[in-house]
């Protein structure tokens, strides 16, 4: 296994290509000792001939059953080493599924099957990932069992997805989540790039995580072109990323209050989330941070006057939010709904490979900012917020701790903004036949971007792994044995991305 740090690039030949048995064993052993899969994907017809471009790849016939027709890449996060490990194997039209031994591989293998037709033999749950037709739902039969179908269009102002509940009375025995309605074909559109649209695809792959995805992309381009952004640019990115986290956590705490009918916190937090978005808009003019992160640096600077005003406004926001959120913990009616609702065991979370606040609320200490630090997180260590109980209460608690810690990190950085340039776009051409990978702790958890370039330095393959890709199955598990009426509450406590998953 080739080891490298977060935000590194290397020649694609540096990733060792091993026989499949060794590949599978290496991953299983690494996972046993605490590693997690950050990306697992197959590049079709890889290594055949020299001049491979994305356009040529799609034009190739895909019926050669016996020859090695794809290269399977696996990247693992090794938190104890603070490194990422890469390993590859060439495969034919089928390979023995890793999922029975490594459950967290299940969604990746389903995705490989859907995108390439290569079969993970022995996969226990080989269902569509983003295809909305021909989905074969698991169903429950017998007296007093019934099925509830919800979506794709939901009751609130949220994205589309389909939920199928198998209930026994009011109790959910099984929930199946079928996504794909938001599929726009981003990864396909990225192949052959980068071009003038690329950064905008990144910013809108999950629009509420604009900074997270744009930062992962920028890190990747900087690694490929050996560009080092100035400390000042890194500081602005860090501030923007933490503001994004704060806005979403505060908004979700308000929405959780709304879902249990506690209106004071709902109203206050709805407004306070907007105040945080307005701080981002002070930096770049856009409430979601469009245009802030650019490969090579940032598009906007924070001058001294702005830093002072942002800091003052932020302190007021935190004070108001602490008060609003504090009301939750003092209200028995809220606690009665939060506690022991949507429980997820730590072992389940580990097996499924959950990330972000959902994992940390099961007591798992897992945070890209401290496990694989980059940018400002190399210098400003933000304590990882965990809570052991794995219920809605834990997820709310972790969100609260995180917005508070983000706020103090932002204030620290604002108080001592490093000198330097905000950076110029990295305009150098990308190197040929290279691979780069970056990890960012977005507000939902670990974002992974991985790019492989072709012989001319264009993207041959670009993989985006949104944290929701890991976490949707977590929500399905959390619903088992719950009242169906608690679904909105459980769903909001995860608040996963539909478009980030569907891409």
């Amino acid at each position, binding site marked *: 296994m080739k080891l490298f740090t977060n935000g590194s690039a290397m020649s694609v030949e540096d990733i060792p290509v091993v026989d499949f048995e060794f590949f599978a064993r290496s991953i299983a052993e690494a996972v046993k000792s605490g590693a997690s899969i950050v990306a697992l994907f197959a590049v079709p017809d890889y290594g055949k001939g020299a001049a491979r471009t994305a356009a040529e790849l799609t034009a190739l016939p895909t019926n050669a059953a016996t020859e090695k027709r794809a290269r399977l890449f696996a990247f693992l996060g090794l938190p104890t080493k603070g490194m990422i490990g890469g390993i590859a194997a060439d495969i034919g039209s089928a390979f023995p599924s890793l999922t029975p031994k490594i459950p967290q591989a299940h969604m990746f293998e389903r995705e490989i099957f859907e995108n390439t037709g290569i079969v993970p033999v022995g996969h226990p749950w080989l269902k569509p990932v983003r295809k909305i037709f021909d989905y074969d739902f698991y169903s429950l039969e017998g007296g007093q069992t019934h099925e509830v179908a919800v979506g794709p269009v939901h009751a609130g102002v949220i994205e589309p997805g389909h939920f199928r509940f198998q209930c026994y009375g009011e109790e959910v025995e099984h929930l199946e989540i079928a996504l794909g309605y938001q599929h726009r074909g981003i990864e*396909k559109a990225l192949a052959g790039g980068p071009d003038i649209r690329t950064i905008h695809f990144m910013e809108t792959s999950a629009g509420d995580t604009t900074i997270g995805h744009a930062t992962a992309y920028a890190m990747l381009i900087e690694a490929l072109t050996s560009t080092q952004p100035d400390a000042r640019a890194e500081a602005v990115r860090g501030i923007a990323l933490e503001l994004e986290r704060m806005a979403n956590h505060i908004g979700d705490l308000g929405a959780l209050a709304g879902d249990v009918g506690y209106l004071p916190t709902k109203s206050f937090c*709805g407004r306070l989330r907007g105040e945080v978005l307005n701080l981002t808009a002070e930096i770049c003019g856009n409430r979601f941070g469009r245009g802030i992160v650019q490969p090579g640096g940032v598009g906007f600077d924070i001058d001294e006057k702005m830093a002072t005003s942002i800091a003052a406004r932020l302190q007021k926001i935190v004070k108001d939010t602490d*008060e*609003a959120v*504090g009301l939750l913990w003092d209200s028995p009616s809220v606690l009665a709904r939060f506690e022991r609702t949507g429980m997820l065991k730590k072992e389940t979370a580990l097996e499924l490979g959950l990330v972000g606040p959902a994992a940390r609320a099961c007591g798992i200490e897992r945070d890209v900012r401290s496990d694989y630090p980059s940018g400002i997180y190399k210098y400003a260590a933000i304590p990882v917020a965990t809570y052991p109980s794995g219920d809605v209460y834990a997820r709310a608690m972790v969100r609260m701790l995180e917005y508070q810690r983000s706020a103090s990190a932002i204030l620290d950085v604002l108080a001592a903004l490093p000198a330097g340039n905000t950076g110029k776009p990295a305009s150098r051409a990308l190197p040929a036949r290279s691979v780069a990978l970056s990890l960012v702790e977005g507000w939902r958890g670990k974002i992974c971007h991985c790019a492989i370039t072709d012989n001319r330095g264009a993207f041959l393959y670009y993989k985006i792994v949104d944290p929701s890709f890991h976490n949707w199955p977590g929500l399905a598990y959390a619903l088992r044995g719950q009242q169906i009426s608690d679904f909105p509450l459980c769903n909001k406590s995860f608040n996963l991305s539909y*478009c980030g998953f569907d891409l």
Partner: protein
Amino acid sequence: MIKALRSRLHQGYKTNAFPAENPRLPERYPGAPRLETERCTVCGACKAICPTSAISVQSGEPAGAEPRLALDLGRCIFCRKCETACPEGAIAFTGSFRMGARAKAGLVLGSVPHVSSTRTSRLDVSNDAHKAVSTGAGNQALNSEETRLIEALDRKMLKIFGRAMKIRQVSAGGCNACEADVNVLETIGFDLSRFGISITASPRHADAIIVTGPVSKNMELALRKTYEAMPSPKLVIAVGACAISGGIYRGLPDVCGGADAVIPIDLYIPGCPPHPMTILNALLELLDRVPRKN
């Protein structure tokens, strides 16, 4: 309980005063662009750098007239790259949040749009009200260098929707930014319901749909079914560059490239995403609830 009351006092009254007063928006907020056509040399620098091909060079009318620049707000994602690229300062972002149009051609700045002026006054409440409400605004855009006010609904439609309108929102490939800034209108900061407008859960109860996103192929059927489930007369509002034109996703094989490929649109609200004030203002202009000073 005492604590909740105390914090209610402390949190204060936060609803903005619009439309009586315009809220203060951030200094760097771009707002509506304005073309200074007399400065433009049609060098094409802006056109080359635009990620959504929002800028085009149009040959004016009559044929053979000087070529001139056109900026389509329906495609624009307000990245301001054109403003930076222009050596003559012919594109300026004005900071105005008032944007929107009843017809797609009304979103094109600086063009001479080819719109038929089939203004119709027919209002068929029982059946297909769309033909009656969606035409007529195109003329406004003739030779316009900056955005204009949105034409209000006609009197009969205002009588139906002017004082109470229920909106169903359908995200169809949206990135959750437009959705978030529609959602925020229901918070106390904007308090949409003080205008009689609210979001409703069922299309059966809805007077209007807000569509966001480029309409992914996988959502096409669901969007059409939602539309069909609504009683007539009904309005459709496209929010954001994606829903208007496909935005950054225009031309990709997995999207329809805008909501009007699936259902007819009555109001276009540009942005990526539009500022909540832009959405609120457009809704109120449509319902003739904003003082019309110009």
